[in-house]
Each structure stands twice: as C-alpha cells, then as structure tokens.
C-alpha cells in the first residue's frame, strides 16, 4: 500500500472523504491541462533541441536567472522596506503610501516595459525635460532595453506582492516583540534585522515567489526588450518551430528551477515558523524627525512614482493625445468583458481555493500537502503553455461529446473553457493567499464545532467564514487583478469576436500603435486601481 493511502487510512476515523475527494477533484481539474503538456516530456527529444541547447540555451538560462532572482531580490527590498516604514513610522504622507503602494500591481508587466521605453526613448518626456536646459546634442538617452533595467521594472510593479503581506505582519499585534526589543536597548535597525525581519520572512518570501512566477511568465516585456529567457524560448521552440518536445523541456526546467528554490527556502528556514499571536497590541507608530523623516518619505515617493504614477501618467497623457483617433465603440464592450470574466474567475478561484485550504485543515496528511503543492504548478508555466494544454483537453472532450451524439462544437472556443484555463493558471494565487488566513483561526474552533456534532461544511461557513470576510475579499481582489491583466490564455482560447482590455492592448501594441494601446492599457490600470484601494482599506482595518 502506498504511503499516503496508509496515512489516509490511519486517519480515517477523523477523515471526511467527501472533502478529500473534492480537493482531489479540484486538483485534478487544475492540473489536467498542465499534465497534458508535461506528459510530452516522455516524447523523444525534438529536432530543435540539440541546436538550441548548443547555441542559445545558456543565454536563456542566464537571462532567466538574472531577471528572475534579481526581480525576486529587488522586490523583497522594495516591499519589506516600504512596508516597514509605513507600518512603524509616521512621516509626510505615510498613511497615503500605506494604501498607494498597492497600486503598482494594477500595471501589467508588458505595459510597464512599453511605457518606460516610451518615456526614455526617442522624443519621449525624459528627452523633453533635458531639452529644457541642455543643448540638443548633449541629450542623454539611456538604453533601457536590457536585462537589468527589465529586472528593475519588474520589481517596481510587482513588489506589492511583498509589500502587502509584510504590511499585514508589521501591522499585526507585534507590539510586545517590538517594545521588548526596544526596551532591551537595541537600535531600531537591529530590531528590524534581528527581530522583525525573521517574523516577516514567511510572508515576504511567499510574496517574493509570486513575484518570481509573474516574472517567469512575462513574455511581452521580455520580447520587446530583446531579452531571451526560457519563456521566450518556449514560444520560439513550440510556436515558431513547432517542436513541442523541446518546448516542454524548457518548461520543465522552469518548473524544476522554481521547485528547487522553494525547497531551498524551506531548508534554510528550517523549523522556524511564525504563528501570529492573537493577543497583544499593534506597534505604535513613531513620528520620524529630521532627515529620517524626509528619507522615509523620499523612498516611498520614489517607489510610488516609478512603480505607478509615471506609467499611469504617461498612459493618461497618451490617451488624451489620441482621444479623437481612438475607436471608442469597442472599449465599453472590452471593459465589461474584462470585468465580468475577471470578477467571475476571482469568485470561482477563491471558492475552490477555500474548499482546498479547508480540506488541508481537516486532513493533516502528506497526501493533502502534495495535492496543495502540485496544484500550484500551473502558476509557474507560461500562460500560452497552459492554453495549449487546455485546448488539448477541450478538443478531447468535444470529440467524446461528438462521439456520443452531440452536434455542435461545445467547449472549444467557449467562455467556460477560458474560465477553466483561468482557474488552472491562477488557482495558486488564491490558495497561497488564503492559507495564512486559515492559520490565524484557532483550531479550538474546529474542535468545539466537531465535538458538538457539526459538519465540516457548517464549521467552514458558520464558524470560519464570518472571521475572515475582509481577507476573503482581499484575496479575491488580488486574483481579480491578475485576471484583469491576463493576456495569453484569453488571446488563444477566446470565442469569436470577443475582446478584453488586455487583448485590445495587445492588438494595438502588436501593430506598433503604442499610443492607441495606451487607452485600453489605462482602462486596465483604472479597473485595477479601485479594487486595490478597497482591498488596502479592508486589510488595514484593525
């Protein structure tokens, strides 16, 4: 008997098979498209493999590691530092930054790449500003289309993934730790590095991994910057050369690289685990004085300006510029489609993630742990890879339906299948963000409920959910933002005549009409802004 089965049987008495099966089913649905692609690892190596391995693979790996780890590290620096500042100190606009630093997340990575090239490019605003007080031939035009600049840009728009959970940790009831450390005469810097940072580590690193995976998924920005990564390599091998075997090998490298990192991180963290106390008081913010006050302000302002204001401002400027030329008729439709699909998708993903996370609470077994871990793989793979897996699945199902007498093509090219792809790809975001919320709820609640003979469903809906509505909405909003920005799945799987803001942005950008692309891009940012601010308000309520 396999290990997990024995494990399961041992716990059978307390087990709730329906919940376990539900989790298994969800994992199956999430994993199936991924599995259909990864199965091709068994294929003999493709015709392009040897050539690519000997010529460009080293570049792919170097660039992937540079932008991936660089972006990971930078966003930790950006996110932890700013979260610490706004949580523990008071300085000009500190409360504003506490909310505003959520906003960079509304900007898709492909848009930040285009916007910055425009700002620093020929005839862009950076040039115009220099032109005000410099001779035309001494104007400096930095070439920002390189891996390092790309890394910084990624970190600038993705660091809120670290900022948000860290701010929640620093803002929670850590007052006693902080005050104890301070009363022992530790310098604030030392308090931060040796007491608070270890406390925030799981949250920060968890956010950092989301950043990493978003970076590994970016295709548009990397392609435009001429930075060849494993992701661009997957596209090259599979779509341009039609060599699935080689593409899947690249994809597998991505997956194993990320799994290795996660494993390393667990090793390094060791047994140290952070559990939040439910007693104690939050840290009382200290009013900064002198230079420190302006340094703190400057740092947050820098992040806000370069992570959000500059891009949003530029998009707004371009939108005003092309207002007479832009085909506005389609925009309302696209906005509605984006909103509807992202909204429904977020609800669905949060619901499924909730069921899975709760199952994890019911069953403390290796099997459940594995179900949870593997169901996150979809997030590591580029969207287009998932899309083709979903296509294989939906066309397979269609063929079966046809064989049993159905006439029309039922699934392929339907919004339902697109929704399935969203779930498969973004399930990890929901699950990863929900797990900490569950951990905060004392186990005694479950035990009391079970002792009273209540069903797990009752405990979840009546005892747990009322404790975390704000958190649930906040997680939903994060997923919503991700879906709003989503491009490759929608592009490949959508029905006829169906447009979202992201596909409209793509169409203009692909035609090199970047000014027109700014209009739907700005709409994405605006649609993302309000929910992000709402989630910030919800999460910072004490």
């Amino acid at each position: 008997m396999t290990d997990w089965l024995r494990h399961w049987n041992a716990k059978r008495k307390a087990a709730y098979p329906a919940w376990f099966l539900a989790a298994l089913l969800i994992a199956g649905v999430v994993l199936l498209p991924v599995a259909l692609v990864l199965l091709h690892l068994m294929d003999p190596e493709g015709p392009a493999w040897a050539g690519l391995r000997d010529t460009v693979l080293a570049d792919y790996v170097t660039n992937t590691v540079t932008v991936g780890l660089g972006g990971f590290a930078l966003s930790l620096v950006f996110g932890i530092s700013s979260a610490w500042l706004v949580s523990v100190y008071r300085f000009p606009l500190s409360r504003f930054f506490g909310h505003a630093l959520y906003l960079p997340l509304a900007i898709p990575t492909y848009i930040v790449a285009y916007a910055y090239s425009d700002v620093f490019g020929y005839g862009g605003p950076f040039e115009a500003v220099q032109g005000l007080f410099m001779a035309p031939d001494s104007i400096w035009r930095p070439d920002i289309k390189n891996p390092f600049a790309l890394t910084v840009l990624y970190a600038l728009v993705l660091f809120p993934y670290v900022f948000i959970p860290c701010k929640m940790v620093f803002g929670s009831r850590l007052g006693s730790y902080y005050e104890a450390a301070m009363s022992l005469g530790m310098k604030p810097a030392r308090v931060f590095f040796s007491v608070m940072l270890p406390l925030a580590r799981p949250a920060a690193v968890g956010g950092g991994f989301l950043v990493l995976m978003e970076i590994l998924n970016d295709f548009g920005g990397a392609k435009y910057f001429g930075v060849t990564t494993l992701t661009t390599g997957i596209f090259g091998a599979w779509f341009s050369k039609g060599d699935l075997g080689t593409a899947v090998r690249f994809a597998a490298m991505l997956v194993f690289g990320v799994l290795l990192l996660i494993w390393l991180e667990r090793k390094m963290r060791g047994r140290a685990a952070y559990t939040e106390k439910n007693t104690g008081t939050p840290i009382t913010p200290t009013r900064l004085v002198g230079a420190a006050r302006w340094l703190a302000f400057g740092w947050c302002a820098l992040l806000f300006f370069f992570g959000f204001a500059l891009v949003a401002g530029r998009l707004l400027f371009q939108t005003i510029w092309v207002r007479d030329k832009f085909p506005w008729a389609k925009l309302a439709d696209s906005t509605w489609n984006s909103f509807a699909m992202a909204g429904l998708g977020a609800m669905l993903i949060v619901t499924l993630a909730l069921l899975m996370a709760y199952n994890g609470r019911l069953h403390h077994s290796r099997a459940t742990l594995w179900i949870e871990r593997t169901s996150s793989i979809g997030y590591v793979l580029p969207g287009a890879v998932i899309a083709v897996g979903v296509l294989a699945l939906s066309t397979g199902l269609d063929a079966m339906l046809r064989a049993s007498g159905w006439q029309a093509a039922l699934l392929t090219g339907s919004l339902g299948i697109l929704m399935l792809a969203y779930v498969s790809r973004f399930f990890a975001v929901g699950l990863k963000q929900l797990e900490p919320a569950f951990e905060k709820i004392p186990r005694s609640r479950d035990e009391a409920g079970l002792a009273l003979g209540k069903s797990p469903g009752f405990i979840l809906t009546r005892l747990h959910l009322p404790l975390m509505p704000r958190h649930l909405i906040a997680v939903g909003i994060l997923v919503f933002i991700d879906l709003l920005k989503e491009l490759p799945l929608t592009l490949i799987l959508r029905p006829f005549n169906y447009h979202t803001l992201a596909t409209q942005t793509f169409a203009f950008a692909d035609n090199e009409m970047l000014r027109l692309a700014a209009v739907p891009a700005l709409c994405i940012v605006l649609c993302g802004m309000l929910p992000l601010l709402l989630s910030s308000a919800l999460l910072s309520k004490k």
Partner: protein
Amino acid sequence: MKFSLPLISKFSLLAILWASCASPAREAEKEQVVNLYSHRHYESDQRLYDLFTQQTGIKVNVVEASADEVVKRLEAEGANSPADLIITADVGRLTRAKDSGLLQPFASTVADGIVNPELADPDKMWYPITVRARVIAYSKERVKPESITRFEDLADPRWAKKVLARSSSNVYNQSLVASVLAHLGQEDGEKWVNGMVANFAREPKGNDRDQVKDIAAGVGDLALVNTYYMGLLANSDDPAEREAYEKVGIIFPNQTDRGAHINISGVGLTKHAPNKDNATKLLEFLLSPEAQIVLVQENYEYPVNGKVNDLGPFLMGLGEFVPDTYPLSKFGSYMNEATDLCNRAGWQ
C-alpha cells in the same frame, strides 16, 4: 454528509453555466457566417468585414491572436474547428499551416485571375491579400544612399557597429533570412548573417519603429524595416515619430539583381472549413479593388490587385521598385534553417 455550498460558489456555478452557453459562434449557426482566425488586427480590416457583411449578408466572426497561436489552435481543434480561414501577416506561417496539413485548396477562378502566381500557393491553398517590402532604412545625415545597394552590403565590415535590427524571433526577419538562404545557398547565407550580426550597433531589440527612432537618435545608421511601418511613422500623430521618419531614407535593395525581398499578408482556407463558399466569397472580396484600396491607403501595404493604381501619397512617394520574384511558396522550406542560423550567429 451535509455539504452546504457557500452562496458565493452557487453564484460561481451559475456563472460557469452561463459562460459555457454564451458562445457567439453557436448562436450564429442559423445565419450565414464565415469564421476567421487572424493575425491581422487593424481597424481597417474590421471596416472591410463590416462592408462585406453589408454586401452579402454573411457575418464575419473573428478571433485575433499571433499567427503561431492561431495555427496551434487550428491544429488542436482538428476536424472540429469552426475556423474557415486563417489570416497571417507573413508567408512562413501559411506554408507551415499547409505543410502541417491544415489547409485545403480554394476553388476561385476570380482569385486566380487577380493574383500573380509567384505570390500565391501553387496548390491554391493560400492567397496573398497585400504585399510588404522589407527594406533598408538609412540615416540621411550619415549615409550616402548609393553606398549601399544590396542586403549583402549590410555584412560589409565598413558598417561595423552601424546596423540595427530587431530580434530574429520576428517573422519578417526570419522570412528575410530564408529568402537569402534560398538565393545564396547555405554557406554564403551563413556568412552573410554572421557578417551582419558582427556589424550590429547593439543587441537586437524593440520593434520596427524603434529601429528607425534609433537611427534618428544616432544609435546606428542602417536598419531592417518594413515599408508598412514606415508609412505608419510618416503619418504618425506623434511629432517625434514624424521627425524620426524625416531623418531616414529608404533603400529598396538588390534592384539590379534579384529584387527587393517582399512578404505578404495572406489568407489560407482551413481543411475542415464549415463555410467554404462564404470563405471563398470573403477572399474574393478582399482581393477586389474596393477592398484593396482601403488596405493600401490606410495601412500603407502594397495591393495584389493590379487594377489598383492609386497607391496613395506615401507609397507613391517611395517610388516604384523591382520586387524579388522568387516564388514565395518556396521560402517556407528555409524557415527552420533560417532560425537555426540566426541562433548560431547569435542574432537574438
């Protein structure tokens, strides 16, 4: 076991049901339709489709994505695909679709009468709708146009650190390299690519417009660009782009030997097209002078219908040129070798 679903998940279930029912392609079953998978996403195309619907009553349904993705979708859907036509912006993807067995022949004497056979598939599985030339843009300030007359000149060491190009993952560059391989053969083709890569002023990056802007900014002196993007630059509503355009000139290369490399935007008929007749009608409409003139004047592409003489001020301004007459259908077999070659040469 009691398993009460939270309200939110009931909503979600309803939502999925709604979503999976609301496929526009199916609602349209009764009416006359033609279904496109297209890599072209221009406003002018949409207007043409609307016009076609007005004239024929046939509704045009479109999914737009990159050509490679479109072909993948078609491949996955197989016999059940609703698509009738695929539209790409280069010939390489059409020949690949054909070689993968995804296309079938059109039966249109109208199209045969209009299109030059060198531009079309000998088996009539795809036809071009427009032509774009890939040309050399040069700095008017720093380059004498007579000093460069052929693509081969770009590999000349005298242009070291002067040549600008975008990534070789771009289909226009792949097709260009394929054409050079077809004409010069493997060995000389490889020499040419190596020589040109050695002359690159910087790593390949950006899009076609960026190459021109980089000439204007002094990063390099020569660049590979499509005529079509030059038209967009010349008529841009961004003054900086028009200024960049003013600073460059265009050379149609190889005018005394094989002619300038051209590529097409084309239409292929899918193997399992459910609306074959409507698809043929749309092809014939797109080839008609009425439609061609829109593509020419709004998108700055060259027509494939010889009856269209008014090319508009931009293309007229570029002047006449001798196009490469090597059959486009034969470039396809060089495409894979072309990308391998670029990888070997370090053209990212």
